[in-house]
């Protein structure tokens, strides 16, 4: 680097630049969380059942195989839109589907990927279904591109 560009100039770019962008990031975070998100994440539908469903989702490490809104592992299907894919957007259909699916696991088909049996109660499966239904209704800029996730 040219001699005219000194170490203290480099340091000032570092300090000034990072301070500016940390502040900008905090302002954007404030705007995102306080103004934008309440209109996008359908939080008025965030019932006790949905919250319980999220805990069941976490306590069984579902994200260790599946992705949800594209985040997680890539070993098993995306689940943020499974309500639309398997429940055709109908709560009762989806809950019945979930119950049948969770109780049928594992398939034990030789050589196929296996989903463990989590021994959830009917109520827990219903809560989990509510959580996935709520998740499917978040405004996520139109992702995924199609129903297959």
């Amino acid at each position: 680097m040219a001699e005219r560009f000194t170490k203290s100039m480099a340091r000032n770019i570092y300090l000034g630049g990072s301070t500016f962008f940390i502040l900008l990031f905090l302002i954007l975070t404030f705007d995102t969380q306080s103004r934008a998100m309440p209109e996008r994440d359908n939080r008025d539908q965030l019932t006790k059942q949905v919250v319980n469903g999220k805990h069941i989702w976490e306590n069984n490490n579902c994200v260790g195989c599946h992705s949800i809104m594209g985040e997680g592992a890539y070993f098993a299907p995306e689940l943020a839109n499974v309500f639309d894919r398997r429940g055709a957007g109908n709560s009762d259909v989806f809950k019945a589907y979930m119950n049948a699916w969770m109780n049928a696991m594992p398939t034990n088909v030789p050589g196929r990927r296996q989903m463990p049996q989590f021994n959830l109660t009917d109520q827990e499966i219903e809560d989990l279904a509510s959580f996935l239904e709520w998740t499917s209704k978040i405004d996520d800029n139109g992702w995924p591109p199609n129903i297959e996730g």
Partner: protein
Amino acid sequence: MKYESQRVAMPYFIFALILFAGQIVFGLILGLQYVVGDFLFPEIPFNVARMVHTNLLIVWLLFGFMGATYYLVPEEAQTELYSPLLAWILFWVFAVAGTLTILGYLFVDYATLAEVTMNKLWPTMGREFLEQPTITKIGLALVFIGFLFNILMTALKGRKTVVNIILITGLIGLTVLWMFSFYNPENLTTDKYYWWFVIHLWVEGVWELIMGAILAFVLIKITGVDREVIEKWLYVIIAMALITGIIGTGHHFFWIGPPEYWLWLGSVFGALEPLPFFMMVLFAFTMINRRKRNHPNKAATLWAMGTAVMAFLGAGVWGFLHTLAPVNYYTHGSQITAAHGHMAFYGAYVMIVLTIISYAMPIMRGRPYGNSNKAQVVEMWGFWLMTISMVFITLFLTGAGILQIWLQRMPESGEALSFMATQDKIAVFYWARLIAGCFFSGGLVVYFCSFFIKGQASFDDEVRGPALQDA
């Protein structure tokens, strides 16, 4: 080694390498499960093996960073470590807590683990990479704080160099951002938003400060280039890292709920994120070209150049490939993400830890000029085997990702293949990745073998090379 207390870095490095071996074993299990779905089921389901694979990575890199810090901070500050005893105590606390957590994953059903560790009281478990029980997270926070105290007390009583200041800034950032792992709101979108404060702002933020500082330290030592020059480069690199990386967090906010302006911010700043990694390549090669000495530890020099190049490829190029929102719309959460993750972590953080180990381990073992030529040749074989294998792992996963997107993401609903049908179609890439993974493991064995070769380089090896006076 100038200060006796630097030696406390040794157990950290050794334990890091043991965990590295464990990580690779589980990587092979996962690779096989991708093609033989019921392998080890139900004893070790995929989610357990993955959790062990990724958590071992995080923990061993942290051991590596801590070892690097204990080694270089006293040398830079020109003083003994404040408390070697505290460093030893924290080593055992961290090692025992980390090992117990991994054993918990393997031998206790995850839901039971959540129950016995009373996750209900303060739920933080079950989120990607943050699967640790809350009690482990608290332990980790205490280890970080104790470690920072020890390092700050050391740095404050000695010479204040830019390398030390930046390394410690990175470590403080790491500790502060870790606190977001305790925040798990009931609203999934808020949870995800702040989850990235740990994940992104670690690996695309403060960890780059740590990497830059370690690289600068090793370059000062092996090239003999004037500290002033190296420190100026270091400032420019970390300035770019933070200027691009902080708003660059936005490239994770595209599809998880935040508003549309993040599509622009994430794309623009994400596209600039390769810059600091490109600067690191220029930095490493320019300094080595202008070297004032030919350090006999050629293996360490190779690792220093390697980490810069591979970090640029993995984090920079493979990150850029899918950072633009219109592209990410199709690639998000596909095997492209996995391809990028593998090469970025290996290039930037695995290799920087192996760089400082390559430089510091021989010195701590009483070989001030490095290992014997034979040992270095074996180590360099390990370098090339692991690095080339990782390139192939990345290429095969990229192939899998492109085909996955083509079959599953691009067609309209109704015409697109389902996730599982797509996985069957791309299995050949997974087999190829598994073979590359086996070569990687072979490279790791070769690398480990280099530690058991006796002998050391001598001062004569240095003067035998061409002396560069023009730099």
